[in-house]
């Protein structure tokens, strides 16, 4: 994506992660932050030694590596004018501000299209650019609720659960990146930009999988349940997270041959050869009132005797989908990820040397690269305003004093 210029006018996750995806592949991203406070994620953390510092927030550092950072007060006329100058010179604008705010500032798509008809503007908002909830306020937990994800996550007997952290924002960012790239591709032939309107609620609601199908095809409401196979809580196939001697494993058995291998893995216990456990798949179609023997307690008891590694490698050697439930340390030290070079170390002038996840794919000709640390607040003001937009240095000083940058 070398040569592609992106202007980012966004806070937290949904905008910044979208442009991060582009910057990993070589696009130049100029991140616009308000002077003094900067992106809200600078105050979220985690922080080294738990000491809050706007230049050392883990979330900010992760989402904004590779980018150029400028400050701009878009509540001032001068600030807005500078913003529009930048918008004129870029291919893509990604923003996640409330629609009304953008309209009031004269930064909505119809306005910006006037100054740059090739601009691809991607707007990411909780509920999209139209509709009765358009101006509603929503944080990540609210959108996971609005998108139907919370309802089906957790225990049926307890409250709906959040998928941490900021997952609504991440999914929206991913969809936004897809929409943006498609629009960029279309522009190659058409020469025209367009507006890409992303509703975070819709992004979450579209990855619910069978929740939608349950209602659409059977008129049923899928409840919170942790095993795919049975809605009444009876384990038909082992498809759950199980505690073992030194941690947890996830087992996801879908096919009869995997079941056979699993029985072999756990030492062919007597109960496994009981005919009533034989073709579990038939139980998907069982009739009302038919008694279903519950595998759950039997499996739980047996697995406690094994370590995570025994089950993981022993299971995988038998082609059973079993994996450890990795915590952060587990993931960082996982040999498969290490071998693939998934994590990279970057030096940040304030926060020091830290380890970051890279990109989750390998492109053979245009590999991803994560080298530059996240920008300090206003770090590239001179580069952008002076060197590129040609404002003399004295102007910058005056603008800074006036709170414009």
């Amino acid at each position, binding site marked *: *994506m070398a*040569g592609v210029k992106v202007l980012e006018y966004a806070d937290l996750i949904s905008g910044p992660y979208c442009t991060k995806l582009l910057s990993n592949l070589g696009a130049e991203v100029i991140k616009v932050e308000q002077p003094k406070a900067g992106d809200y994620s600078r*105050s*979220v953390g*985690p922080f*080294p*030694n738990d000491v809050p510092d706007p230049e050392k927030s883990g979330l900010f550092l992760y989402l904004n590596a590779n980018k150029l950072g400028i400050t701009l007060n878009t509540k001032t006329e001068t600030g807005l004018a500078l913003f529009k100058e930048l918008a004129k010179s870029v291919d893509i604008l990604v923003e996640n501000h409330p629609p009304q705010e953008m309209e009031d500032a004269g930064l909505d798509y119809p306005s910006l299209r006037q100054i740059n008809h090739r601009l691809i503007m991607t707007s990411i908002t909780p509920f*999209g650019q139209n*509709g*009765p*909830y358009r101006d509603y306020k929503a944080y990540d*937990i*609210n959108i996971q*609720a*609005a*998108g*139907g994800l919370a*309802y089906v*996550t957790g225990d049926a007997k307890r*409250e709906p659960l959040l*998928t941490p*952290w900021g997952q609504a924002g991440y*999914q929206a960012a*991913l*969809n*936004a990146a*897809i929409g943006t*790239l498609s*629009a960029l591709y279309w522009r190659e*032939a058409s020469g025209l930009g367009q*507006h890409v309107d*992303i509703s975070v609620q819709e992004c979450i609601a579209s*990855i619910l999988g*069978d929740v939608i199908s349950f209602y*659409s095809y059977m008129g*049923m409401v899928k*409840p919170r349940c*942790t095993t*795919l196979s049975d809605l009444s809580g009876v384990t038909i196939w082992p*498809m*759950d997270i199980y505690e073992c001697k030194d941690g*947890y494993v*996830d087992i996801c058995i879908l096919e009869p041959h995997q079941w056979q291998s699993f029985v072999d893995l756990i030492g062919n216990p007597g109960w496994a050869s009981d005919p009533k456990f034989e073709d579990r798949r038939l139980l*998907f179609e069982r009739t009302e009132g038919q008694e279903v023997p519950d595998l759950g307690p039997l499996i739980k008891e047996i697995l406690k005797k094994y370590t995570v590694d025994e089950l993981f490698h022993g299971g*995988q050697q038998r082609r059973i*989908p*079993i*994996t450890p*439930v*990795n*915590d*952060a340390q*587990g*993931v*960082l030290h*996982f040999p*498969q990820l290490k071998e693939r070079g998934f994590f990279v170390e970057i030096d940040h002038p304030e926060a020091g040397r*830290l380890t970051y996840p890279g990109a989750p*794919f390998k492109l*053979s000709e245009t590999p991803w690269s994560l080298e530059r640390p996240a920008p300090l607040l206003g770090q590239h003001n001179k580069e952008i305003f002076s060197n590129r937009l040609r404002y003399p240095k004295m102007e910058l000083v005056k603008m800074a004093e006036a709170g414009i940058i």
Partner: protein
Amino acid sequence: MARLPLQGIRVADFTWAWAGPYATMLLGLMGAEVIKIESTKRPDHSRMRSLAAGPTFGGPNQAPIFNDLNLNKMSITLDMTRPKAVELAKRVVRISDVVAENFRPGVMDKLGLGYEVLKEVKPDIIMLSSSAVGGTGPNRHYVGYAPTFAALGGMAHLTGYPDSAPIPMMGSSDLRSAATSAFAILAALYHRAQTGEGQHIDLSSTETIAVLVGEAFLEYTMNGRIPTREGNRDRIMAPHNVYPCQEENSWVSIAVATEEEWQALCHTMGDPAWVKDEKFSDAYRRWQNQEELDRLIGEWTINYSPTEVMEKLQKVGVAAVPSFSGLELFQDPHLKERGFAKEVQHPAIGKRLVVNAPWKFSATPAEVSRYGPLLGEHNQYVFGELLGLPQDEIQRLVAEGVIN
């Protein structure tokens, strides 16, 4: 001028199950012509399942989930154990821009359709290989499905109530991985448009999940701490939870970030005496005492429906939104106005509501335009029209079981 962003792009789609097909479906929603290369002998396993505890299974052309994940696509059938079928598959690749597959690493090579071979067939081909843990590395032959990606990638460990075991993530992990695949393919398409160069994409579903919990790794590398499950708690915000409402199993989410929002919430609740308690007098204290805070707020929300709470609180600028069930997603007036769901007529299953495209393009609207294809429905079109095989040859190939 093309009406859709990816009009003119053709995808030779070998994917199956969820993580592959959803990726190519996203491309199809944006106008790409997606040709699913299937086989009667080993159909896509999402064709072979009914929904759990649902109505009796009706056959490979009546599977609901298959329909939902394969909208807009075409289907041809080839028995890939036959050399002639492999040749035909190559001919489909020759007229395609993208090849997508999510078999276990090594399977495409064994079939004679690995990247190096396909590059000879079409030098600028873009090939996506999506797998559980990637195409390289010590565990590349390991098997996995959606829940295992989330477990390995660190997301499952973080999800759950503070006092209970991690919650297995379900199909959404597959679809997150699929979205990442679609992104990677588009990046490759853009690069090809600039340079004429294709490439091979090696995607690990586990990694696609790990990147979504980046902060957890930062916490560990900064402070040596391993983050764990915190239910619905936020790092800073309180109240921040899902609260019970009037009807059984109805819930509303409420999150407060500023002093202003807190005051507005208190006022809307009628300024009950407890809000003046010094336990809740500032954001820090509210966070410390959030268990009690949540209980007290729940005693207010329980008197209303989720929508009532949303309307009361949104009016004063407080973030409150119901926790919608699958049914409520289809009834929500906002989603209706946005056109979230679309009705699609399927020849065997009938009229069904499916999820429409998750982007609104101002110039090139993406949308669902057809049902998930019947097995082999487009054999005639692809072999006859696109590849130009004469009718008698097609008939012979069918009789021989090559087209099957």
